[in-house]
């Protein structure tokens, strides 16, 4: 019965459809069909993933050709090959003007990691407080909603006055940028948990900790992970902006220096590194998502 229902689901047939009775579907047929469907879908997926690479590669090629045909000067738009060469120079032959690429990266990554950890930690804590108690909601939510409407980058001069021009104002700006989307999504994730599950935890006499671990956190997780991705994006953006104003180290400082020395190739290197770092964190979240939401994704895979 259940195997047939599941097969019907896989085949996209209505569960209680009058056309599919138990006699109509022999146990062999759905099993065989499932066996064929799965690899075909996988092949189609890898094909489409391959196809998705075409347009970016064509763009890179055109970009490279603008230089080969001398359409745009490399000072304005350095071709990809030049970006790669400059990057390797910055890694292996650091100059006093720019420092080393790995050094700048280390500073920026550290700022990002500290700021993000701080912002995410505070956001999750506040979301739990606001999501789990009416008093917490009344206390925390208005404050966060106020902060949300503050223009984040308008705070930079204030932060410089308060915290100087070192890493601290950058870290705090990253923390602020990261915290708002994560808070909003986690909070709404907690609030949208089916109330009947709280009845269940009452009936099963779950204590506070058990309810948190079994109902609240996993129930809010899908929405919280959406928030995590948004918050990573906001955090990187905050870092890029904060680092370019009054920086003395890091990728943003490298960009500032390059602008002074009219070295667009160096700017492109720094931008590429930002991009790759952003892709990396996004990829990590997607891995996390696949593991944490296996109860949904396994079903799709079946």
């Amino acid at each position: 019965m259940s195997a047939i229902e599941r097969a019907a689901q896989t085949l996209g047939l209505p569960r209680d459809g009058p056309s599919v009775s138990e006699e109509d579907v022999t146990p062999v047929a759905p099993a065989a069909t499932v066996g064929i469907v799965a690899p075909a879908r996988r092949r189609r997926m890898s094909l489409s993933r391959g196809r998705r690479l075409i347009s970016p590669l064509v763009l890179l090629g055109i970009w490279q050709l603008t230089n080969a045909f001398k359409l745009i000067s490399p000072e304005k738009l350095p071709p990809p090959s030049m970006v790669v060469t400059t990057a390797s120079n910055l890694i292996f032959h650091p100059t006093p003007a720019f420092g080393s690429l790995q050094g700048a990266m280390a500073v920026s990554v550290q700022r990002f990691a500290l700021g993000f950890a701080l912002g995410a930690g505070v956001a999750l804590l506040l979301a739990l407080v606001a999501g789990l108690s009416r008093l917490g909601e009344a206390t925390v939510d208005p404050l966060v909603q106020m902060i949300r409407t503050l223009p984040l980058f308008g705070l930079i001069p204030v932060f410089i006055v308060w915290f100087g021009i070192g890493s601290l104002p950058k870290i705090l700006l990253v923390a602020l940028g990261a915290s708002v989307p994560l808070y909003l999504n986690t909070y709404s994730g907690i609030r949208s948990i089916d109330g009947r599950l709280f009845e269940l935890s009452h009936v099963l006499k779950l204590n506070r900790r058990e309810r948190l671990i079994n109902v609240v956190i996993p129930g809010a997780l899908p929405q919280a992970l959406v928030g995590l991705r948004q918050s990573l994006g906001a955090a990187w953006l905050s870092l890029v902006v904060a680092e370019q104003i009054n920086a003395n180290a890091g990728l943003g400082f490298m960009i500032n220096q390059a602008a002074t020395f009219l070295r667009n190739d160096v700017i492109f290197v720094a931008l590429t590194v930002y991009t790759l770092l952003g892709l990396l964190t996004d990829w990590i979240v997607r891995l996390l998502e696949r593991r944490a939401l296996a109860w949904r994704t396994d079903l799709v895979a079946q």
Partner: protein
Amino acid sequence: MTALAEANAGTALVSVRNLSREFNGRRVLNGVDLTVAPGQIVALIGRSGSGKSTLLRVLAGLDHGATGEFDVPSRAGVAFQDARLLLWRRVRDNVALGLRGESRHEIAEAALAEVGLSDHLRAWPLTLSGGEAQRVSLARALVREPELLLLDEPFGALDALTRLAMHDLVLALWQRHRPAILLVTHDVDEALALADRVVLLADGRIAYEERVALPRPREREHPDLAQKRIRLLNELGVYQKGASL
């Protein structure tokens, strides 16, 4: 009647006295008196809105707005019409939910074996059929060896065949563990198939009661049941107009 109730009160597992519940001035329960003896199966029937689910929710501790008195054992299990599984926990972990101690997983596995789901221990709830999910829900309610099982239309969303299979399963589990069962249902046949007493709720109070002494499992077409069915349907007001039925 009161004397009888008082006599019962000593041995009763569940006793409800003068229980009322209002929603916005509308009296859903209006002075309900009910006792359930240990190991007894009581079916609560009534038309929709008769307050039967409200009564069950009050006894399950999910509704705190009622007035009156009631006693229920602290070891009570509840199964709802929706199986109410945590979709992000595997079947075995759903059943082990809230159990403490080293052997919690073994206990859950034993309960799942009893409902015939030993080969689904590591399945995700979303991959189960409606009947399977409801069996998991029963296993979860039984895993604590409750003295009282509160069932709120647990088979209402199942197809007719699965429902009959679930009746057999509930009776088998009841014979092994002997909990008292309070079953809310709108299905007269279901009530007659399972219960020692069928209690009819109307206008917020107990309007009628039918005792069924036949051994279980019961023949659906048994003449005694046919009579009781007609009386219950009459009391429910079903036959008032279509008397020729």
